[in-house]
């Protein structure tokens, strides 16, 4: 029988009683909400996500197996953490592993780009749940944040509805690299005065209409979209002008380098969750050449960004995630490629709330299965949120329903939490 679509659907999480008496569960949830609210007041926390799209090979990155059956041609090198080895394709990262940790025992039980990506983002195998970025934005974003909460710098992109049932203000805003986003610039025909005048009048009209039909959440969401748009418009300088030459030399003049520079700028200027996607890891052919090239670009650039966050003191309050939708098969195919592999692979993470220099979980000698501390997207989801000080076992509240923030059948990886 087919069991390929799991069933951690949102409906599972809704109590039947929640449907019948909408107030009943709201009580439970409202106990948890103030805690969350209080947490976020304490200190601005941020998230930097670097997404290696297509599925980075764990064997060529965080879990090398040189000299084994499927190990491939690359060596493992020592790192700044005694006893920790990573692939020689990551020499810069190797010198900074005392800032990062590795999870080596991930098993998603799916080899599909789509399902793997959603599991890693939503912490649920299936169903429609908000992405980790939207959840973090919801609970971390200050009331008067100068930028939209969840920004994604990517040269390509699917249309993601990352906020699911959360308000659209926590949805991901895509930026197509360091150019000015679509429709960001006021048309020439509209003077600054005219824009201000008309916007003032618009606000007045919308205030009068607010709450019509007893649906304030609708009008609030509509009004909030303009506020977010204005925030972006006010900071168009962030997207304009050539970055500093020295920075470009350090980060690299390729798109990923420029995107990471933009990510730094966004984080420095009040971005809450900033995601950068590095495309092109789906190496069904020529896995080794591609990884040599791709990781070469990733390694140096990412480490410059990590250094900058560290030097400015921001790293302590920024959760850093390096992740993919899955890893790559140990088995090398006839085209010298590695295929989709959700069964035993790795990610790296560090910064806010994460114990640095740790390795959690392991795979067996040939890397064909997880041999120790197996985790999946659900455990990681809890871990990210707990690292950010968000109680991932609490509930989102929505119109009388309440939905557990993290999958209640999963737990955070405690040994990673600082």
């Amino acid at each position, binding site marked *: 029988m087919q069991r390929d679509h799991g069933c951690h659907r949102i409906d599972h999480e809704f109590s039947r009683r929640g449907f019948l008496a909408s107030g009943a569960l709201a009580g439970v949830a409202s106990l948890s909400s103030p805690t969350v609210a209080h947490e976020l007041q304490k200190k601005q926390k941020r998230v930097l996500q670097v997404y290696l799209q297509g599925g980075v090979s764990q064997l060529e990155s965080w879990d090398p197996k040189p000299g084994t059956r499927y190990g491939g041609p690359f060596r493992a090198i020592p790192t700044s953490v005694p006893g920790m080895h990573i692939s020689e394709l990551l020499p810069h990262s190797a010198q900074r592993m005392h800032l990062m940790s590795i999870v080596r025992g991930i098993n998603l039980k799916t080899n599909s780009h789509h399902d793997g990506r959603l599991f890693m983002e939503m912490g649920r195998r299936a169903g429609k749940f908000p992405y980790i970025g939207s959840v973090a934005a919801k609970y971390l974003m200050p009331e008067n944040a100068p930028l939209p909460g969840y920004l994604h710098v990517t040269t390509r992109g699917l249309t993601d509805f990352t906020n699911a049932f959360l308000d659209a203000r926590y949805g991901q805003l895509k930026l197509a690299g360091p150019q000015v986003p679509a429709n960001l610039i006021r048309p020439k025909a509209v003077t600054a005065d005219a824009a201000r005048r008309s916007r003032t009048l618009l606000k007045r009209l919308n205030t009068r209409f607010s709450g019509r039909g007893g*649906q304030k959440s609708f009008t609030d969401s509509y009004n909030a979209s303009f506020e977010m748009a204005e925030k972006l418009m006010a900071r168009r300088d962030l997207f304009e002008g050539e970055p500093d030459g020295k920075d470009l030399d350090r980060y690299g003049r390729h798109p990923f380098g420029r995107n990471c520079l933009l990510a730094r700028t966004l984080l420095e200027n009040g971005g809450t969750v900033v995601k950068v996607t590095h495309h092109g890891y789906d190496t069904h052919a020529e896995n080794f050449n591609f990884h040599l090239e791709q990781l070469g670009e990733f390694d140096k650039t990412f480490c410059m960004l990590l250094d900058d966050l560290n030097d400015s003191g921001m790293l302590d309050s920024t959760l850093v995630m390096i992740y993919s939708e899955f890893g790559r098969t140990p088995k090398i195919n006839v085209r010298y490629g590695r295929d989709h592999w959700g069964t035993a692979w790795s990610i790296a993470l560090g910064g806010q709330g994460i114990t640095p220099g740790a390795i959690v979980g392991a795979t067996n000698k040939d890397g064909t299965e997880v041999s120790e501390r197996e985790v999946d997207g659900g455990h990681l989801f809890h871990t990210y949120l707990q690292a950010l000080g968000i109680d991932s076992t609490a509930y989102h509240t929505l119109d009388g329903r309440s939905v557990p923030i993290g999958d209640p059948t999963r737990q955070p990886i405690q040994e990673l939490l600082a």
Partner: protein
Amino acid sequence: MRLLLPIALALVLLKPVAGVAAEVPDNGLPQQVDKLIEAAVPDFAEHASPLCSDAEFLRRVTLDLTATIPSASATRRFLADTTPTATKRARLIDRLLISPAYARRMQYLLDWILMERRSSENIPSVAWQSYLRQAATENRPWDQLAHEILVEGGGDSKTRPRARFYLDREFDLTVVTRDVGRIFMGKDLECAQCHNHPVVDAYLQRHYYGLKAFLDRSYLFTDPKSKQKSLGEKAEGDVTFTSAFDDTKGKTSPRILDLAEIIDPDGSNKQYLTKPGKSARGVPRYSRRKQLGIAVTAEQNRAFRLNIANRLWAAMMGRGLVEPLDLAHVGNPPSHPELLDLLGDQLHDHGYDMKWFLGQLARTRTYQRSSLTRDASAKIALKQFAVGLLKPLSPEQYAWATMEATGMLASTRSSARKKLESEAAKAQAKQAKMPKKTPQAGSDKKPKADPKPDKTDTPSAVSITISTAALESAVDKAVAGHIKTFVTQFASDGGQKTSFSATAPQALFLVNGALVREWLKPTTTNLTGRLSKLNDPTAVAEELYIGILNRPPTASERNEVIDYLAAASDRSEAIIELTWVLLLSAEFRFNH
């Protein structure tokens, strides 16, 4: 039933149609609906908003039944009409239902319900949309439409567009099984595929597999030559399942929920009209997929009528009696169970006539309540339907409403008319030169669906009349790109729902986007052009509010406009600004 009037749309909208607006009997469906809604909670009358104003009603019902807002002149005429309210509103409803724009609205609504904003992969969107438009124009009954879609495999080029439901889901068996349950029966059985539903007691594993058994023998067939995909079907194979919880095994023939299993006829096993092969699409003698079309729409399957009644109710009222729309089960009962039964039964008894049904809903007090709450601070449960709920404009409604309000549509319509007229004139001139022919001789091409306007009966007529339907179809083509832009910007993920959220890119599109700004540039015919010719600021305020929000301004709104104009150094710029403000107002963004 084909109801097209060969007169201009504006006239259709404005001229009372004699005889259509018969007064409704006291015990008609609208009265029964209101009784059930109003009796549901003891303090209903305390919370309930009064009936909405004529202006609010006009805008609301025009959007709901024709996917756009009324024109400024239609608004003025409706507001000036002194016919008693009930009669006047009933007549308006009837006029809207017979206008070609009704089919446009239903095309959009059905597309949203059935395809849930999926991208077009195997069936071109244009072919699918014109299939839906045709069905809506004929007011094809929902059961017939559902049947057509559920049995279609896409092998016959004539009916192929209907297969979009399956083919643009790539015939992923788990997806199509789930979506047949959700979209046609309002039941999301997804979780029941691995075990009896853990929370929803009423969703059993055998329900999911009973549904799956109808489709399990169908498969995606790719023609080796044309690479075209369609559905083949086998004449063998059964569905078995095992619970992921306790290993209980089950086996099922096709079956709708707890209705009887549909057993294959004796001797049908492995009997083919076309045997499946590498280059042959399998066609069995006995098709289980055909049985799905019959079984889903059958009398005994009450879920079918309740689902469509609930979905159409939600489209009109802003919220389903069952919410979410695809999660009907005993643990999540309708807010008004008796009402949903009544609606489902009435729709069924009227042959699934959706046009009639929407017309009935529009006549209810429930539909006609104001969205202004009596007491803004009072917490009123939305599911009481005591207040007119906000409905975010669908991307298509938003596009049409914006084009109508700015006057862009009027210019498009007028150039489309001119083009059609000149084409018709050319054709007439050509025909005049040709030797006389009997109209039917040698022509296997039937005239287009729209009936010929009366005037063209005399071939020598010099004046050319373009049928409303032909004109509207030309307008559709002219604005297709704009509709697509709005869908790209404003469509949210997934199928019909009643929630709303707005994003920053959408706001940026509205604030800075070139498209809407372009429509604000004054021309001889558009709104800003009309406004700039008005010297009296009071008249400007009036025209602005009537043209965009379909109501006259209040005294303070009028003064607001007057002050704005007085303070401006450049009057024409100020007019553009004011137009922009009203277009971006929340009042415009929602159907209220």
